[in-house]
Every structure is written in structure tokens, then in C-alpha cells.
């Protein structure tokens, strides 16, 4: 779609939303959980719309948007940190859960138990397809550290989801080694 136009011309922003909206929402959901993900998505695309005319026409739109989403997600994670001090109302932990008992809730619960950096690396690498060198530039540290964080994150996810996966597996045919 992007390659259809060249030089100075830029697609209508609506086409960008259609093409990239789902990836950005997946990344935000993985990093923040369901509720805050909606806010981060909105903030990401509003900021992107604002900056869009100044973006270089040959820029990689997905990388640009995921980078903005990363910053918006960090704002939310920091806000949660601030909310952790004792206040009248309990912290809004429900935001990490979907409908109780479903696979999505279990996954979001498991992802929420990972350290934020592992969550970010897993989201950027496996949902947005970023190479580890780009992820390192985004979250800090070396590409090798990012690779390790990603592998550790996936390993923890598998362990946390193991009982659920075992149940799911009982209904499908698999070859056990």
C-alpha cells in the first residue's frame, strides 16, 4: 500500500490507522493490559496525526507508530507507579483483566506478572516484528540483553500458562517426542 506512492506524497492518515491500528493495539495490550491499552492507543494515534505532515515520506510507519506507542505506554507505567502510594481508593488492578476465566484474561494476567522490560521486548519483537537491535535502541541496553529479556519473558509466560495450555492441548492432536 505504501509503495504505491512515492516521493513527496503521503497517504491519507485514515489509511495509516487502518493498516497499523491492530498492531499498535496488540503492543499496548501486551504492555499495559486491556483498559490502559485503549488510552495509550488513542494517545499514540492523536500524537501521530499531529506529527504526520512533518514525517519523512519514506519513513517506516510501523516503526514510527510503535515508537510513539512505547513512549505513551511508559507514561502509563509511570502513572501506575505514582498511583502505588497509599491513597483513598485502591489501585486499579482490574485493568489487567478481561472477562474472568477466559484465555485472554489468563494471558494478560501472565503478561502482567513479567517485569515491564520483558513485557516490552516480547511485545516489540513478537507483535511488532522489531529486530533486537532496534528494541535495544528503544528500551536501552544491548541487543543481546534485549534478546535475553525476550527469551526470559517467553519462558516465564509458558510456565505461567502451562496448566491452561495443558488443558487446551488435551483437545488437539500433538506428537509428543
Amino acid at each position, binding site marked *: 500500500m505504501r509503495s504505491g506512492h512515492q516521493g513527496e506524497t503521503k497517504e*491519507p492518515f485514515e489509511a495509516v490507522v487502518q493498516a497499523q491500528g491492530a498492531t499498535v493495539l*496488540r503492543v499496548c*495490550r501486551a504492555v499495559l493490559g486491556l483498559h490502559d491499552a485503549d488510552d495509550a492507543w488513542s494517545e499514540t494515534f492523536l500524537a501521530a*496525526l499531529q506529527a504526520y505532515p512533518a514525517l519523512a515520506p519514506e519513513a517506516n510507519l510501523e516503526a514510527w507508530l510503535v515508537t510513539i506507542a512505547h513512549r505513551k505506554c511508559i507514561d502509563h507505567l509511570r502513572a501506575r507507579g505514582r498511583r502505588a502510594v497509599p491513597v483513598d481508593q485502591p489501585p486499579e488492578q482490574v485493568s489487567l483483566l478481561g472477562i474472568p476465566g477466559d484465555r*485472554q484474561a489468563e494471558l494478560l494476567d501472565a503478561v502482567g506478572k513479567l517485569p515491564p522490560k520483558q513485557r516490552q521486548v516480547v511485545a516489540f519483537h513478537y507483535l511488532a516484528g522489531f529486530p533486537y537491535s532496534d528494541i535495544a535502541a528503544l528500551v536501552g541496553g544491548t541487543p543481546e540483553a534485549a534478546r535475553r529479556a525476550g527469551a526470559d519473558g*517467553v519462558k516465564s509466560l509458558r510456565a505461567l500458562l502451562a496448566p491452561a495450555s495443558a488443558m487446551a492441548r488435551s483437545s488437539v492432536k500433538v506428537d509428543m517426542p
Partner: protein
Amino acid sequence: MTSEPVDETPESLPDDAQVASLLEPLDVGIELALASLQARLARDAQLMHTLDIAYRVVDSPLGSLLLAATDRGIMRVAFERENHQDVLQGLADSVSPRILHAPARLDAAARELDEYFSGTRRQFDLTLDLRLSRGFRLSVLRHLPKIAYGHTESYAQVAQAAGSPNAVRAVGTACATNPLPVIVPCHRVVKSDGSYGGYLGGTEAKHTLLALEAAA
């Protein structure tokens, strides 16, 4: 069929496809969520004044019509045969790429067009953004709404009214490039011999509009 790959040791790098299926539940409800987020984006962008062009598509007896508006007013009406995607790309190139599907800004235009096509409205009460036209073409467009509903003028008469009696051909060009067909009634300009003349929505569309106005 290929056999199952041998399991990797737990310490090796995770397989992309396996992780993708592990993360798949993230997609539950994503279509609905995106639809409501897109509506929210359109509203927020409007409030923040970052939405340069809002558009929507409406059904009409002439086929689907693309309507586009800036915050100054309606700027473009496009027929299906113009290819709506091409028209939006043209607006992105010539005006601004900050374009979103945002129906609310075009509620009044959609309602008035509905009334016009059902024969209950004889003139449009909409603010127009005529920035896509300039010079003599703009003079022609400014004259066209003065041709009364159900009436027609020849290209020569319009040339005269727009201040250049010899510019009959240029009137034809101005009508053919009218960015706001139907609303700015270039369909009311016909040939001196009484035949329809061309129309960017097709001769049949021009016929339909003139017949509608004659019957009302």
C-alpha cells in the same frame, strides 16, 4: 505432510510461530475495540483541531458519494467513478494528509443531500470551502448557485455572468472540475442547443438531477 519439528531445548530461542500462537488471545475483541477507538480518535482530533479533513460516504440515487470537509466547510463531493481512494489521495497531496473517516462533521451535508434527492430541498444551506478552485473557475462556481432550482443556463450565459463572455470553453472546464458537484449545481449548465453536455458524474447522472428538479 511434514513431521513435527523436534522440540528445542528450553534454553534455546523461542520459535516465532509458537510465541505468536501463545500471544493470540490478545486479539480477542480487537475488531470491536478498534472500531470504537477509531470513532474516539475522530472525536478527539476534531476537538484538538488536528483533523484537517473529515470524510464520509453516503448513498444517493447517483451511487455512493464521498463527502469531505475542512473546519471551514464542505470542500469536496466525489462520484464513485472518480474513485474515492484517488480523490482522498489527491486531497492528501494538495491540502493535507491529516484525513480521517469522521462522519459527524458531515452530518448537515448528508442530511441536506438526502432532502435534496427526495425532492424536499431546493437549495443548500451549507458553508462551502472553495479552496480547491481559483481564478475564473472560482468565479464560475460562485455564479452557479444563482441558477434557480429546476432552471438551466447555457455555457455562454454562464461565461457572460462570470464576467468573460468569450470564455465559453473555460466554463465547460470549470464545470468539469467542479469540486462540489450537486451542491454547486453545475448540472444546471447545458449546451445552447438544449442538449445536456458533459458531466463529471456521467451524462446519465446529469439527466437524473435535471429530471428530479423538473418533477419536484
